[in-house]
């Protein structure tokens, strides 16, 4: 019996470690390849003979990586900021007030969330084309000024858990709705706000379809994901550079994610919705 239990313990841990290695392995391999010389990256050895740190510098001179990073950062930050400004009041309204059409409004929010932007890409693209805003990232940023369905949903799910007593007490004390939102609700909802902000930022940072459609042909206006796709095409024999670029693009995201993982997990378990 004791032997059996011990064997089970070993099996479970071995499984967990093997799985972890399976998922972490590729990342290690990428890092090692990123440090090889051109020639060695084309061989089957796994360990760099010479640590070629200059690859990381070469990536910047061989491509517009810096511009792409700036573009991606501007896109993700502005979109996130705009999303917060518009989605917080909307979620507040859906969560706190009872009014005719509230259910309908919420159903519309859910339906919007379910429909991927790709589905209605044609009509929306034609509108932006008419406004002459294609070949830029504005078509991806400006709509965020008008609320993002997923964020509204997540925030609302959080806000409905705040007991009415708080807002009622604030009303008795003479707070207006706006004051309640800023002084009472927002401080309490900080974790949810952090979660939607991070979700939104990551979504934009990782977005490929949007920039592919709107960013145009000029490399100056590209984002990282778009740039990386062509980087591979242009440097197909230089796996070391491609992997160095991949690492440079991915590492910051993963590091931020690891620090913020509690926020993410809270957001996910709160709503059962993925970002």
């Amino acid at each position, binding site marked *: 019996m004791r032997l059996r239990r011990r064997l089970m313990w070993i099996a479970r841990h071995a499984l*967990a470690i093997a799985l972890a290695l399976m998922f972490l392995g590729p990342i290690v391999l990428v890092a090692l390849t990123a440090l090889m010389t051109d020639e060695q990256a084309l061989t089957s050895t796994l360990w760099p003979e010479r640590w070629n740190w200059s690859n990381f510098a070469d990536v910047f001179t061989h491509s517009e990586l810096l511009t792409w990073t700036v573009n991606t950062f501007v896109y993700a930050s502005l979109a996130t900021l705009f999303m917060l400004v518009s989605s917080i009041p909307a979620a507040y*309204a859906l969560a706190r007030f*009872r009014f005719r059409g509230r259910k309908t409004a919420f159903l519309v929010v*859910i339906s*919007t969330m379910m429909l991927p932007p790709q589905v209605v890409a*044609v009509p929306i693209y034609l509108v932006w084309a008419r406004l002459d805003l294609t070949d830029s990232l504005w078509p991806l940023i400006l709509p965020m000024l008008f609320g993002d369905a997923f964020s*509204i949903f997540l925030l609302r799910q959080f806000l*409905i858990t705040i007991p009415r007593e708080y807002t009622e007490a604030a009303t008795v004390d003479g707070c207006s709705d706006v004051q309640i939102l800023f002084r009472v609700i927002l401080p309490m909802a900080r974790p949810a706000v952090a979660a939607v902000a991070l979700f939104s930022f990551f979504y934009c940072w990782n977005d490929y379809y949007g920039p592919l459609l709107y960013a145009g042909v000029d490399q100056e206006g590209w984002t990282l994901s778009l740039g990386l796709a062509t980087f591979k095409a242009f440097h197909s024999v230089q796996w070391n550079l491609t992997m160095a670029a991949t690492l440079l693009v991915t590492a910051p995201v*993963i590091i931020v994610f690891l620090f913020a993982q509690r926020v993410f997990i809270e957001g996910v378990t709160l709503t059962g919705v993925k970002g």
Partner: protein
Amino acid sequence: MTTLATTPAGPQARARRAGPRPRRRDGLRPWLYLLPAAAVLLPLLGYPIYMLGLLSVFDYRQAQVSGGEPTTFVGFGNYATLLGDQRFWSVLGQTVAFAAALVVATLAVGATLAVVLSRAGRVPRLLLSLAAMAAWAAPAMTGSTVWMFLFDADLGLVNQVLGIEGFNWFYDRWVAFGVVGATVVWHSFPFVMVTLYAGIQAVPASVIEAAALDGASAWQSFWKVLVPILRPLITIVVIQSIIWDFKIFTQIYVMTNGGGIAGQNSVLNVYAYQTAFGSSEYGLGSAIGMVMTLILLAVTLLYIRALHRRGESL
């Protein structure tokens, strides 16, 4: 008051809501807050779908966009073209089958790991969460690049380990789907794992112990105890995954270079993109968009029903 755990929630709040409705309706004020969102949710949902429907019944190409040619009403012509096209049907079938396989695989991997995670010791748990977080955070684009590198015909680690030289994983339709599918699962299992893990944590240990005392094996207590308790959560995870996997784009587009040889690995989203923006067939592209909208709308209805069952008040 700043963390979820300390927020007074749950029963208290629910009891309050179940009580008498607030005396006064809030009248117009809520709409004021909703205005920015409503102003666009309408355009964002209503207008595009209306336009999508409208465009889908017109012959609308580049010439019409630039105003070179008048737009002609073709009724259900685009739909007829689409439904009469062998390729559309094979892409549709592929999309549904691929998404179904992905949902099953993601759920199997995610659920297994959630159970492993809930039983593992500290170090393996830390390693596993770390791996999951990395996969979760990695952009679809970089994930695709890395997997393409792993499966590269000449240099890929996979070929070296298996000792097969020059085998191209993206040549055969089903093999390519397998590799792309693995990439997608690698990206999406963390969400399932984390959600179910949180659910498992919330199940009182006494329930599991009681099952064990009654002589249930680990397998039995998973299916007979955990799954029924977590069913509402599982439903939502499944529906989320369906929607997620149905609209897969980046991995297919990047890894199979726009849908593989002669489009053999194409899925609806890629097909729609190429039809609408590659060939500037906006009318036909809209018709594909309409078909996708209808399918996803059906799934959404299921989602709303699931939310309802979970006891959400709308």
